């Protein structure tokens, strides 16, 4: 990993931990990281592995393109929740349907953080953001999109949920990444991650991310079983 000062993430951001883990794994396996636009857009400048930076929400088609040419290369697509569940939901649905041999890491911080904390498809009902000051309203804004749908669509899809709010969570993420990169199908690793800068209170942002993880349904089957 290059000098940590080069990171463009804010201090305490969950992205830093996740990027480090992904980079370490891919550098070791000589794989490729496919990033999209969001807080993770400058990834190519500070990771050691090969990277391809795609347009907003389009990490999955980029990774699919690489996969078509290199059937055995370890490939990880790296998205935020806005990336994967808002603008790029089409690609998530089709990749799940195709059971494409890819790993998709969704860094879910419940908001569009790079643009300054707006509501995304990962924002839970009641959470306040800059585009829903009174909190997300179920009637007005709809309910958040749960990645569980991908597994309902295709039972071969692995859906894993973890968090990076404590050491145990980080260790689990590391193990899941190692395991899923071997799987010859589509794996979604949804990581609940804090946004300490924009959440208002750094400590609370960690508590909130953990709470989201605890609330989320962790699928019993096909979860890669740790």
């Amino acid at each position: 990993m290059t000098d940590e000062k080069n990171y463009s993430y804010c201090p305490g951001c969950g992205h830093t931990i996740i990027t480090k883990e992904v980079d370490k794994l891919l550098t070791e396996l000589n794989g490729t990281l496919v990033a999209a636009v969001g807080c993770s857009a400058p990834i190519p400048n500070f990771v050691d592995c090969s990277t391809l930076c795609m347009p907003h929400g389009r990490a999955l088609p980029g990774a699919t393109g690489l996969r078509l040419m290199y059937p055995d290369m370890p490939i990880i697509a790296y998205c935020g929740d806005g990336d994967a569940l808002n603008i790029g939901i089409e690609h998530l649905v089709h990749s799940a349907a195709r059971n494409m041999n890819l790993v998709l890491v969704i860094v879910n911080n419940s908001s569009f953080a790079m643009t300054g904390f707006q509501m995304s498809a990962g924002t839970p009902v009641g959470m306040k953001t800059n585009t829903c000051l009174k909190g997300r309203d179920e009637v007005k804004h709809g309910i958040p999109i749960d990645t569980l749908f991908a597994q309902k669509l295709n039972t071969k899809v692995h859906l894993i949920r973890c968090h990076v709010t404590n050491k145990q969570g980080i260790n689990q993420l590391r193990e899941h990444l190692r395991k899923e990169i071997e799987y010859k199908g589509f794996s979604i690793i949804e990581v609940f991650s804090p946004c300490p800068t924009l959440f208002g209170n750094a400590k609370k942002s960690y508590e909130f991310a953990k709470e989201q993880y605890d609330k989320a349904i962790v699928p019993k089957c096909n979860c890669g079983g740790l």
Partner: protein
Amino acid sequence: MIEKEFMKGNEAIGLSAIKSKLDFLCSYPITPSTELTEYIAQKHPDKFFQTASEVETGNLLMGLSATGAKVMTATSGCGLSLMSESLSYLVMSQLPCVVVDVMRMGPGLGNITPGTQDISICYGAGHGMSQLIGLTPTTIQELYDFVPIAFELAFKHRIPVMIMYDAILGQMWEQFIPHDFEVNIDETSWNINGKDIRKITSFATSDEKQKEMVETIINKWEWENIPYSVLKYDSLLPEYLYIPNKPILSAIGLTARTIKKAAELCGCGYYIPKVINPLIYPNELESSEIVTIEIGGYQLAQIFQLNGLKIRNTEIFTHYIPSIEELVERLES
């Protein structure tokens, strides 16, 4: 001696692409380009990927060409609009690919009748006015011949190349000679290959990087780069007849074939460009007035004006390619 082939325009492109050692064609069905999609899907299913939408097509092109593969897509009107974001990214990330655009009529859904209205996309695909190389063949022989050239230009300058022709040229059958050829591409040093560390991005994180990236993109259009390598191909040189003090007729695609005879009957000259960006024209043309014959819009006239040519007027036909008689009648009136 090579036997002549008798094929549809879109299929001739497919044949030529396979002979150019195409790695992948990814596309979403859209009339009137579907024959190319079907040709590759049926004859070479291992080289074909059907996408979920044109948005996916554009981004899949990016992923595929990042590996240094020869990739191509077939599209038309609305499909091209959906891909324009990716085209802009492809230009800034310096990735080569070939986009076959079988032009149809109109803004919006328009119609599936022929048109020549997409050509200005070569001068500003998507945001950031990203320029692309645009080839405009007029016969099926040229459709066949331009594919290897498109790949060579795309890889030499790391830029997407458009092959643009109207729906009729894509749908009609014509005889052509399927020459054998080789695509000369230098070894690539930028592609993701699973061995070396390669980084492909269109995002500039510092002022210096931004300066370097923008200068690289702009420098490609300097005389010694793209225009110079385009001039090296004889088949890309324009066909023209210059008569002093007489108007010059100009058109692209199938219409270009009717204006030659019409020009003879009216006693004027003609100019048929085979490359729309960079536009190649003889110096004499700078002093003459050009009459553009277009199907649907003023795009060709705009491009000529942008390149410093004088436009006398534009004859627009709205949904069909005019016959020689009709063209002469319109020009005389």
